[in-house]
């Protein structure tokens, strides 16, 4: 709990100005509106899916428990198939989703919906088998075996269900923590296979489709549209950009224990429209690296001829970045992310003061924002949290920006504590930044840290819509 090298002159600049809650202030921030709009759009697909079932079910056929169970299984299956498409579409790196709704928001929706979808897919299988078993009077296990092996293409969908459950398991928090980013990512790619495998049985035994050409056409079209989006935004666009901008490693600088900065050069990088606070997915074409790509935030304001990322040794590959040779070709996807100055932009209103809180490697996007956010003096305050003083990477740069612009800068180190001694507990935050309840807060760090700080901020009176979080967990 020591303030590392924070000049007192910079600490004493926050006069807690009384906030002037204007009319527009009560409105929801635009990115939140977009987030809701996105959820609404997803929900809008549910009624048509239910209608398909409704239309293909004969009134009067649902007169016994077995039929009802089977019907529930069908609905669960249709919904799961629809949501699988939605899940893939969410991760298709559609620019609007990535940059306006925000990659982290989309990833959160994807995660929550993913769990739900795996649950639905399991329910589909269980309900159908139970329903059939009840109807035919056989035991469910025997019925399950016969459903898998005797019906066309159902064995494929059984494999598909297994893959979905596998993906669900590796994404469960407890398991995810023990896995490297690469393993998790590559297992996740199996979802594409799972959707392909499940598709066959939907047409072969799903009467909603086998009996209606129109439904088959619409369903196929939806799959084709999502596949096209994936190919366009995940493959074609990144490939074209990588070829056009010719990014190469310029040099690698060690910033501290386990932390390196990679300076990158390229042509006309201003055309990318990258903003401070955004990240790109990088693929270094070097031995042992080319097959994996990683999201790293820009750690300095993007320039037309150069970008910089700063990486802490988190996953399997980051350690290798220190050995990158100058001249290494780099392919990339992006820029992505809505963790930018635009988050706090308001209609026709003076920009709010800003508080940046970074933990560990979470400092990187904040470092770029710190450099580029408009304002002077106490308009921008940065609180930097690390466990050891020597882990405060980039601190020298932050100090020089603070000196140049008069921005506030605090460093807090030491172990995580409880409600009374945590370096970032509410009372401590309020002491450093008395007017924090009136500020836009940008928070970036490991999940545990962002969660606890968010709670402290809320308790300190910061409205939810003014807390912008970029948590790295993958």
């Amino acid at each position, binding site marked *: 709990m020591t303030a590392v090298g924070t000049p007192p002159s910079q600490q004493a600049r926050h006069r807690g100005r009384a906030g002037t809650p204007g009319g527009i202030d009560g409105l929801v921030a635009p990115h939140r509106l977009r987030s809701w709009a996105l959820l609404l759009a997803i929900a809008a697909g549910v009624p048509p899916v*239910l209608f398909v079932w*409704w239309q293909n*079910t*004969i*009134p*009067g*056929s*649902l*007169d*016994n428990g*077995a*039929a*009802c169970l*089977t*019907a*529930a299984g069908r*609905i*669960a299956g249709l*919904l799961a198939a629809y949501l699988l498409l939605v899940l893939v579409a969410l991760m298709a790196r559609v620019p609007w989703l990535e940059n306006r709704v925000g990659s982290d928001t989309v990833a959160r929706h994807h995660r*929550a919906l993913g*769990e*739900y979808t795996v*649950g*639905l897919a399991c*329910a589909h299988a269980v309900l159908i088998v139970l329903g*059939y078993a009840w*109807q*035919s009077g056989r035991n469910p296990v025997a019925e399950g075996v016969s459903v898998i092996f*005797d*019906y*066309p293409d159902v064995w494929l969908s059984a494999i598909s269900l297994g893959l979905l459950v596998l993906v669900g398991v590796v994404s*469960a928090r407890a398991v995810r923590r023990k896995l490297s980013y690469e393993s998790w990512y590559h297992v996740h790619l199996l979802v594409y296979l799972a959707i392909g495998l499940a598709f066959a049985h939907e047409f*072969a*035994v*799903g*009467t909603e489709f*086998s*009996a209606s050409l129109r439904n088959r056409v619409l369903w196929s079209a939806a799959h084709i549209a999502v596949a096209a989006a994936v190919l366009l935004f995940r493959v074609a666009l990144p490939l074209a950009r990588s070829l056009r901008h010719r990014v190469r490693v310029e040099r690698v600088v060690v910033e501290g224990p386990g932390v390196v900065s990679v300076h990158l050069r390229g042509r006309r990088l201003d055309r990318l429209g990258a903003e401070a606070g955004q990240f790109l997915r990088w693929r270094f074409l070097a031995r042992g690296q080319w097959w994996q790509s990683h999201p790293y935030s820009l750690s300095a304001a993007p320039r037309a001829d150069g970008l910089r990322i700063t990486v802490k040794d988190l996953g399997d590959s980051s350690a290798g970045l220190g050995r990158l040779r100058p001249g290494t070709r780099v392919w990339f996807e992006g820029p992505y992310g809505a963790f930018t100055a635009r988050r706090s932009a308001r209609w026709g209103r003076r920009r709010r003061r800003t508080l940046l809180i970074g933990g560990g490697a979470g400092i990187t996007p904040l470092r770029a924002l710190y450099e580029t956010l408009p304002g002077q003096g106490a308009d921008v305050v940065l609180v930097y949290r690390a466990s050891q003083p020597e882990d405060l990477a980039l601190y020298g740069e932050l100090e020089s920006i603070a000196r140049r612009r008069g921005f506030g800068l605090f460093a807090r180190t030491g172990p995580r504590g409880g409600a009374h001694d945590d370096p970032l507990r509410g009372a401590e935050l309020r002491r450093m930044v008395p007017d924090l309840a009136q500020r836009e807060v940008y928070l970036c760090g490991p999940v545990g840290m962002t969660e606890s700080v968010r709670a402290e901020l809320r308790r300190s009176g910061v409205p939810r819509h003014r807390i912008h979080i970029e948590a790295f967990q993958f």
Partner: protein
Amino acid sequence: MRRTTMALAATTTGVALIIGVKAGTGSAIRPALGGSAPAVNSSTGAAAAPPATASGSYTGSSVPTRYGTMQVQAVLKAGKLTGVAVLQQTSGGRSSEIDSYALPLLTAEALKAQGADIDVVSGATYTSDGYAQSLQAALDKAAQAARTAPSASRSAAPRPSARAAAPAGVRPSEGE
């Protein structure tokens, strides 16, 4: 995880509700002919029971359903329906399994009702409809034959006697 559980619970409620509403839109027991087969009855206006003179096997019309064609053959002895042979049945998806339990029930119903005035077997709506329509057509044919040649005994060995003897013996499933 907790939210997912809640969402799944809410979904269960929603699905139960929509199934309940759907189940409420149709009566539980519905006659298989249920007015959906105007072509069958209009041809002769036949009564449910064939004339007492009718004997032999009478092939019903092939009735196209969403899951393939249904066609049955009625076996009569002195105007009494003694058996129903299935010549064509639905196919695709779960059809073979559905038919394997529905067809014996339908035949039993038909023999009991001595006609095509039977109820839909739940879960086998298309099969039931097709079965009843085809059977009605067969009985119509029997009635017409009996009327045109009242004395002609058509008891000459019902053709697919093996099938007729065991009406429940459906074609083996085609590996579906």
